[in-house]
């Protein structure tokens, strides 16, 4: 302390500088108040003490080495040192300045702020690098001369080049030869464009070129950043080979679908022409067969033995049956071809009307029919009437051999909050083992002599129900009746 005159020392303390002096042997001669405070030293501990007495081993070693280096080189030496903890934490830069007497003067500057900026920069650089590295897309930056200055791992994967192979080389390396001129013009235009980012390829497909020479389709955006006087262009690019392949596959599928739809349309028209011709041409000869059989029966009755008359009757029956079959097929195909025009339908009233017709045709039958009131549905009235005619007609037909028959139509809620309608009878029923055949066209579970029919009715019912988005099924047992249950979508 003796070497520092008191007035100077006062000035030093008041200046707020953190200063200390040490002799050629590394012993501290004295230090300013701030030095003591920053380094956490109690007053009076400094004179005569060495680095090892005052500081933690790492700092002590660093300081001793710096002082030795300053003395040996005659040049000041800087040491950065973190001090304190918590709110008191600071980073100081200590200059060890050599003196002619062999000692050193230490001047410490608080650089906490700069150090934090440095850390932030390092951190953001690490973050940026991390993001770049995990990006699946290629991130490529070029300078004004279109030389590559950044090439991330995504770019390495997509293009097949290592960053070290392309950084510093022209971007053209990554472009198909025919695209180079256009790309250059585009970048030149973008350089002066008002927007700083844009999607590329709006005027057509853009492509990249891999190291292997393979050209691939890409989607890319480009941005422009001006840093001081430099302009950096960064492109983010995605290899869309798979997407394009998938799109091509979808296009091909659509094409195929259109073709099939056209074929179907054609088939439908042919079917229409066919059913027209069935309706007309197939019936005409039947009329001849039936008509002339009747002529024989009328005009030559006396000449025919009973077996001959019976044969002619059979010819007529068979003919009329075929006429019925043709009509049923036509109705089925008409149902299949037509559209569904839904409106609110009073099913109860419709069912009553159907039953009234059945009664009128066979007034001698004793059938108790119970139809629930207030059944309504959104359905095509013509089509749903065909369903009721078939289901109620079947119940009517298949109860014919029972003296007292019961038919019931009602409605109940199903699990999925849909309404299911049912038509139940106590007639002949059928064996559930054959249930899967029930709705096939021309499938019959009863002989024609037992119960007449062509086997088209339930097929028609099923098609109508399906066209309404509904389901139909049956529950039955032989001679214990059948129940048909349907929904209307």
């Amino acid at each position, binding site marked *: 302390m003796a070497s520092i005159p008191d007035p100077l020392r006062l000035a030093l303390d008041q200046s707020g500088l953190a200063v200390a002096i040490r002799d050629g042997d590394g012993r501290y001669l004295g230090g300013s108040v701030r030095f003591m405070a920053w380094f956490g030293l109690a007053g009076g501990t400094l004179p005569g003490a060495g680095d090892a007495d005052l500081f933690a081993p790492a700092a002590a070693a660093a300081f001793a080495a710096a002082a030795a280096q300053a003395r040996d080189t005659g040049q000041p030496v800087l040491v950065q040192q973190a001090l304190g903890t918590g709110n008191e934490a600071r980073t100081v830069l200590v200059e060890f300045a050599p003196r002619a007497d062999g000692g050193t003067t230490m001047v410490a500057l608080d650089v906490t702020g700069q150090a934090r900026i440095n850390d932030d920069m390092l951190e953001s650089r690490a973050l940026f690098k991390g993001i770049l590295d995990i990006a699946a897309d290629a991130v490529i930056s070029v300078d004004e001369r279109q030389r590559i200055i950044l090439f991330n791992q995504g770019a390495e994967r997509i293009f097949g080049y290592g960053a070290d192979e392309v950084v510093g080389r022209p971007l053209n390396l990554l472009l198909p030869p025919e695209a180079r001129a256009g790309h250059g013009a585009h970048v030149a235009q973008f350089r002066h464009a008002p927007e700083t980012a844009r999607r590329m390829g709006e005027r057509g497909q853009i492509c990249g070129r891999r190291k292997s020479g393979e050209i691939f389709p890409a989607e890319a955006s480009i941005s422009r950043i001006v840093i001081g006087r430099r302009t950096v262009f960064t492109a983010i690019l995605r290899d869309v080979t798979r997407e394009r392949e998938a799109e091509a596959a979808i296009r091909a599928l659509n094409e195929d679908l259109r073709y099939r739809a056209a074929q179907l349309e054609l088939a439908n028209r042919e079917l229409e022409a066919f059913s027209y011709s069935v*309706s*007309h041409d197939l019936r005409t000869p039947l*009329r001849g067969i039936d008509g002339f059989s009747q002529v024989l029966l009328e005009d030559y009755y006396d000449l025919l033995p009973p077996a001959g008359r019976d044969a002619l009757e059979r010819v*007529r029956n068979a*003919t009329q049956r075929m006429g019925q079959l043709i009509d049923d097929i036509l109705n089925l195909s008409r149902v299949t071809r037509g559209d569904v025009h839904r409106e609110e339908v009073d099913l109860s009233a419709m069912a009553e009307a159907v039953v009234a017709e059945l009664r009128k045709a066979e007034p001698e039958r004793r059938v108790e029919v119970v139809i629930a009131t207030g059944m309504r549905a959104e359905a095509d009235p013509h089509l749903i009437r065909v369903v009721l005619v078939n289901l109620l007609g079947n119940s009517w037909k298949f109860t014919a051999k029972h003296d007292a028959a019961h038919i019931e139509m009602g409605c109940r809620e199903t699990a999925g909050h849909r309404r299911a309608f049912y038509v139940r009878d106590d007639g002949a029923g059928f064996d559930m083992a054959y249930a899967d055949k029930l709705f096939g066209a021309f499938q019959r579970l009863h002989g024609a002599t037992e119960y007449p029919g062509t086997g088209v009715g339930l097929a028609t019912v099923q098609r109508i129900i399906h066209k309404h988005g509904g389901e139909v099924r049956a529950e039955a047992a032989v001679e214990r009746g059948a129940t048909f249950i349907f929904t209307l979508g």
Partner: protein
Amino acid sequence: MALNPILLVEDNPDDEALTLRALAKNKIQNEVVVAHDGAEALARLFDGGTALRPAVVLLDLKLPKVDGIEVLRRIRMAPATELTPVVVLTSSKEEQDLVMSYQLGANSYIRKPVDFLQFTEAVRQLGLYWLILNEAPPR
């Protein structure tokens, strides 16, 4: 006064024979003139001095040369026949045929049943209606 004839336009000889039989069975007295295709029907109706003025035309739709729809159209277009009753008597009950026939002014549309007894009954009714009950349009 002689009854006006019936013009039967029918290409199928079996149907022709059966229709004639059904008419006869129902004691319909009118002469029946048969045209075997659309062209012959038009010739019968519009050929100068021998032009027929039928009480009713029984018209099949599917005909060689000129089809029944076209025959109906010409009948309705000509002033001499525009009011003549035309009954379409055909095998088809396709909607397009029905709609077209009525649009062109057919008076009735009957689908010939396969069952000859039903057919005879249909002919009886249409004879009764068009030849007896119905008041023909004024000349």
